[in-house]
């Protein structure tokens, strides 16, 4: 009977946890978060960015038109170096697609609507980059006019870049919130949308850096060399510590502020600290600090290892902070998930061990691997489908008026079918 249950024991949804509490009782309050009920109300709704009733939708459209004008202009200029241009886009996509998947999948319990995520990427790639290119040069000029030349030369980019770019990217998260506020249930959503805005931004910015490197190289016969050299610096050396990190942090803080209005002053100050940390990460990244790590004895370009070391020293503390925030945000979402499924009496739908196996990508993978070992590759695949169906069940359940609604019942039936197919698989000896 339990052949299809790689987790072994079939606990009830509210069976005691190891620490004596119950699944549903593991509330976010323990983490200092408000009741999950409010979040649960919004789960399962998939908002669209096409919302003509929202003023922010029209703001998005106007800025997209302006941004697209500059974006197309820039791209057509850069495509004058076709080999470098194609190689640049290939390389940034090799980096961006896995990052997008990881960010998307880190949102374990309530995956965001793909169209809204696309709107976030487009904001970063088209709107924020285009507006930033205009604003950055203006503000750099202003710093140059007001500050001593040496100070402007050394610190101009560390002041202007974060100020302009983080504001424009976070404005994108705010606009998406105003278009589809029902999709913002907690800090995790701010992380996801912020990271996607940052990803769009970094992709377009990286391509322009790659092409500029080719254009600036003496001779410029070899279009691939400067692209690959700059790829090593920006993506291999600093890919983990760039705009995805910066806006991931600011977005997390923003989402906490707008979704946890009843939180204590201290916690709201902490959320503001997240926003500040995102900006600070960018300042540190741009600042002329720790340049000694890049020095070489003979004055040649730093090695790949030096770039990685330099990037790690500057960016790793902020990445660690973001990782901690994501863990806390995930626990908050797990609590919401538990609350939604807590009333489920049919143990064929979900069990406590299964809930535990859903709490992280690692736990999910290890449950699938266990099934693969016990039941073969088909078992691993079916457990993956079971996990997806259980997450979907919580979404359907949260948007249904009654636990007995046909949609909820249909989802239960789907889960039972997957489970019976699992149980029909022969165990490996």
């Amino acid at each position, binding site marked *: 009977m339990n052949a299809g249950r790689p987790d072994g024991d079939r606990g009830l949804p509210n069976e005691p946890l190891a620490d004596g509490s119950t699944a549903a009782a593991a509330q976010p309050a323990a983490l200092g978060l408000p009741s999950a009920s409010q979040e649960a109300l919004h789960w399962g709704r998939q908002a669209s960015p096409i919302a003509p009733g929202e003023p922010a939708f029209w703001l998005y459209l106007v800025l997209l038109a302006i941004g697209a004008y500059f974006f197309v202009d820039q791209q057509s200029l850069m495509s004058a170096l076709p080999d470098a241009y194609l190689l640049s886009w290939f390389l940034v996509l090799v980096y961006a697609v896995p990052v997008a998947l990881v960010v998307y999948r880190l949102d374990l319990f309530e995956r965001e609507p793909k169209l809204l995520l696309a709107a976030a990427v487009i904001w970063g790639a088209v709107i924020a980059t285009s507006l930033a290119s205009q604003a950055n040069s203006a503000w750099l000029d202003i710093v140059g006019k007001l500050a001593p030349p040496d100070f402007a030369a050394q610190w101009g980019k560390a002041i202007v870049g974060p100020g302009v770019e983080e504001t424009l990217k976070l404005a994108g998260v705010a606009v998406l919130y105003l278009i589809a506020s029902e999709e913002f249930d907690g800090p995790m959503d701010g992380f996801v949308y912020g990271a996607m805005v940052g990803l769009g931004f970094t992709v377009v910015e990286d391509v322009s850096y790659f092409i500029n490197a080719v254009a600036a*190289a003496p001779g410029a016969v070899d279009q691939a060399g400067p692209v690959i050299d700059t790829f090593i610096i920006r993506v291999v050396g600093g890919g983990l510590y760039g705009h995805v990190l910066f806006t991931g942090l600011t977005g997390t803080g923003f989402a906490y502020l707008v979704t946890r209005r009843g939180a204590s002053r201290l916690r709201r100050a902490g959320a503001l600290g997240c926003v500040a940390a995102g900006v600070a990460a960018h300042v540190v990244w741009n600042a002329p600090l720790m340049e000694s790590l890049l020095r070489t004895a003979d004055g040649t370009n730093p090695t790949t290892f030096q770039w990685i070391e330099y990037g790690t020293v500057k960016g790793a503390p902020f990445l660690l902070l973001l990782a901690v925030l994501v863990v806390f945000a995930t626990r908050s979402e797990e609590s919401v998930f538990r609350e939604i499924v807590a009333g489920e009496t049919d143990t064929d739908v979900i069990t406590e061990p299964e809930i535990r196996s859903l709490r992280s990508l690692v736990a999910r993978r290890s449950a699938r691997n266990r099934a693969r070992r016990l039941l073969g590759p088909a078992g691993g695949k079916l457990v993956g489908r079971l996990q997806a169906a259980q997450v979907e069940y919580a979404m359907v359940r949260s948007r249904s008026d009654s636990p007995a609604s046909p949609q909820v019942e249909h989802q239960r039936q789907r889960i039972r079918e997957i489970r019976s197919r699992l149980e029909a698989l022969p165990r490996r000896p």
Partner: protein
Amino acid sequence: MRMFDRARLRPTLAVAAVIAGVVAGGLALDGFLPAPSAGTQEIGAGVTMTAASGWVLVSKASAEGTSSDRGSSPGVELQKGDATLAAQVVGRDYGGDSQAIMSQVRSQLDTQVAQISYGDEHRTTISGNDATYVLFEAIVSGSGDGAQLGTVDGELVCMVVSGNAVVVEVAAPQGDLQFVTDDVSAMVATVRASR
């Protein structure tokens, strides 16, 4: 379709105002603030160059050590951000062309830096003057105690202006030359003999 949500109008306008403040505000303030500029400077032998907006005078450079050519004059050194531009008349009553100047300057430069590589030379006419320009990348050492080696991108422009051999040398930290190329083109186009 949902009715227009007036309650969201104010926060949307607030976000729009922030974006406008950063972009339009920056452009407006930049336009409003007068840019420091070295203005029109004599680079030697009555030849002048007008500095672009934001380029300030660092020093009247000494001709010593920059040219062995007869008749070289003190030039000027300008700075904008971390880019520098040195302009100088390196020869009066010059009978050669801009490519010959370039050849001389390159041979001197080769001895002054640790390592240098050039792009293709381009010969053209700038404001009616014969000119040759080339991009380069060089490993140079800083000045003073504990000076470090570093890589710079640069551009050399050699011109013949009313019988004067003129050299304009631009240098910026690696990757930063692109931010001043428009300024350099504009300034080189203003080089002329004033008497």
